[in-house]
């Protein structure tokens, strides 16, 4: 019943659009028509479900008309028509696309149900391709039926899948190694060691630590990375019995941060010293947030300011104010455009990937160090690939295959 309605609807809309198309098509004066012979039709129309989509696409391919670029050379474009039956009257053939001469394929795709050219799933469809010249049209080349269906894997995303699998295997391998007690070396990172020292310094000075999670939402992976660091910092802060200020720019981030700091205090065995108001929401807008944090920096004069997460233009506003207040400053972000300001104004800066590594460094748990090792292996693979490429060039004399992961060679 539902389908009948749908088909009726489509037929109706087809009629309508066709009527409009037909009207506009007959509009131009036909005086040029007799002078030119219609081009030969395109040949060999092949229909296929459009791969890697959600089931509302058909890939139409054909051979060029003999008059396209050769022969009488009269073809200007190709019109592609679709209908629900091969014997449908002309008015029910909907023009779904037009491509310029020399083109041999067209992806007919329409997902939205209310669109007039909506392409239904799992329904027999028939296509016609017509070569169009100046005021003349070839006889249509037809094909069908074909059905569009849901695809369950996007093969264009194969590199990502391979990457994920390799990464997963490497991670599991190194985690197992770590569990067996094999020592995994990681080189010291000054910025991360500074976090430890900074907490001690704050204790000595009797001043708080300011932890800024950036202006990202909980949907930014940089914020999530900052959460993992916050957990460890909060725990140490509780152990040292220092205080901590965490102003937040997003209510969700604040809620998660509160939970993290609270559990950090509980883990350190001092749940009673946690003050809920130390993690608070300011406002969700960038500059008001900065204005408030800047005020806090100058009034509280924190011993240490830690800025980890997603940052935009406020990076320098925060960091320079921190310099005025005489705080030690540790920053880290994955925003390449903000790194220069942190590098210039802060004592330590975690660049990009170092931000993500920070939690593993601070925790020193073998499981976490395992993933660091996996990251290194993938970088090594990239390096080896690049060197191999150079060697290939020197040996064979042929220059590179550009963009090796973009073409679907698999």
């Amino acid at each position, binding site marked *: 019943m539902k389908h009948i309605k749908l088909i009726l609807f489509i037929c109706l809309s087809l009629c309508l659009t066709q009527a409009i198309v037909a009207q506009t098509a007959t509009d131009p004066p036909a005086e040029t028509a007799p002078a030119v012979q219609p081009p030969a039709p395109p040949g060999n129309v092949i229909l296929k479900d459009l791969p890697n989509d959600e089931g509302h696409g058909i890939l139409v391919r054909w051979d060029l008309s003999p008059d396209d670029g050769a022969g009488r050379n009269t073809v200007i474009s190709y019109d592609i028509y679709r209908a629900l039956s091969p014997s449908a009257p002309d008015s029910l053939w909907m023009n779904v696309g037009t491509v310029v001469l020399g083109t041999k394929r067209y992806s007919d795709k329409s997902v939205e149900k209310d669109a007039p050219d909506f392409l239904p799933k799992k329904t027999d469809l028939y296509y016609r391709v017509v070569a169009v010249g100046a005021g003349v049209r070839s006889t249509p080349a037809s094909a069908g039926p074909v059905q569009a269906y849901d695809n369950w894997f996007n093969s264009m995303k194969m590199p990502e899948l391979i990457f994920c699998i390799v990464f997963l295997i490497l991670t599991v391998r190194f985690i197992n190694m770590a569990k067996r007690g094999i020592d995994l070396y990681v080189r010291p990172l000054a910025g991360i060691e500074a976090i430890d020292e900074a907490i001690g310094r704050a204790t000595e000075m009797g001043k708080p630590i300011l932890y800024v999670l950036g202006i990202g939402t909980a949907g930014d992976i940089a914020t999530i990375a900052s959460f993992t660091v916050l957990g460890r910092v909060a725990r140490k802060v509780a152990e040292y019995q220092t205080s901590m200020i965490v102003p937040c720019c997003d209510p969700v981030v604040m809620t998660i941060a509160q939970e993290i700091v609270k559990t950090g205090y509980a883990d350190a065995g001092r749940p009673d010293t946690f003050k809920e108001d130390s993690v608070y929401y300011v406002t969700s807008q960038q*500059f008001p947030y900065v204005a408030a944090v800047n005020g806090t920096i100058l009034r509280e004069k924190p011993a240490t300011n830690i800025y980890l997460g997603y940052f*935009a233009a406020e990076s320098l506003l925060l960091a320079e104010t921190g310099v*005025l207040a005489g705080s030690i400053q540790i920053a880290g972000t994955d925003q390449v*455009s903000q790194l220069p300001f942190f590098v210039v104004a802060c004592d330590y800066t975690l660049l990009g990937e170092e931000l993500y590594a920070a939690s593993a460094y601070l925790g020193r748990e073998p499981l976490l160090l395992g993933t660091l090792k996996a990251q290194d292996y993938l970088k090594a693979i990239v390096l080896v690939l690049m060197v191999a490429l150079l060697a290939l060039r020197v040996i064979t004399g042929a220059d590179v295959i550009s963009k090796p992961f973009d073409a679907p060679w698999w």
Partner: protein
Amino acid sequence: MGLIISIIVIGGGLLWILYLSIKGRDVDRRIVYLFVGTTVALAIIFRLEFGEVATPIVKSVFDKIENLPAGSKIVLSYDFDPAMAPEVNPMANAFIRHILEKKHRLYFMSLWATGQSLLSVSLDSVLKPEFPDAKYGVDYCNLGFKAGNEGVLNVVITNLRKMFPSDANGNSLDSLPMFKDVESLKDMDLLISIGGGKPGVKEWVLFAGDPGKVAMAGGSAAVSTPLLYPYWPKQLIGLLGGTKGAAEYEAELIKRYPRFKDKSMPALRMMGPQTMAHVVIIAFIVIGNIAYFRSRKKGEQS
């Protein structure tokens, strides 16, 4: 006259600071602030200006608009907020002048809610008074703002009406003559996004220019311009970076169309204070280094 006063005030002050820091005195940050503020203020009051010449990356945008046949369709997207406006608004106005002067069709829109109020300022202060003959719906129109960031682009690149069934004033697109042959952004001849944040030029390139294979140009705040450079010249035909880019465009516009000479060209005027302020900052860096080397020498001696 103004130039001489400025040079005496700023130059004299800098020499004095240099003398002090060679003597080993620390320069307080507030002195730096004072100099930056004074320099910019003097340059603004005396309207100091310096000549600008368009660089290739700016020239290519200008030439594109210049060489498109009259009646071409150009989208101008206001993707910025008031904080960014002083830097990028001049570009927008220069584009409006150039596009309408060439009798192209101009489609406004924005991916930032804040863009719309800035657009209405542009319309009232530049478009309407300078091009009284330009007709709404025929020569220009405003599609308005739609929330959804690059998602909006994802849709309009295939179907404009799905996202914008009507323009910002509630007119159905089909009632406006300039939308007659426009199905999606793919039917445009040039897309221009002006904005320094996210979504901005980058999103336009990735979600509209590239997939739609439409020529794309951009204007962005200086801070995000370096990251857009890699898209030039393939994915972006050209890029106006910050005030300098805008000033170069304005200079080129005045050179080609002298009738704009007496119009307000804020970017060109901005370059005066810019130049002066840069001189002062560079001077402070030099002073800082001189002081540093002196103190190091002293340290070595003692």
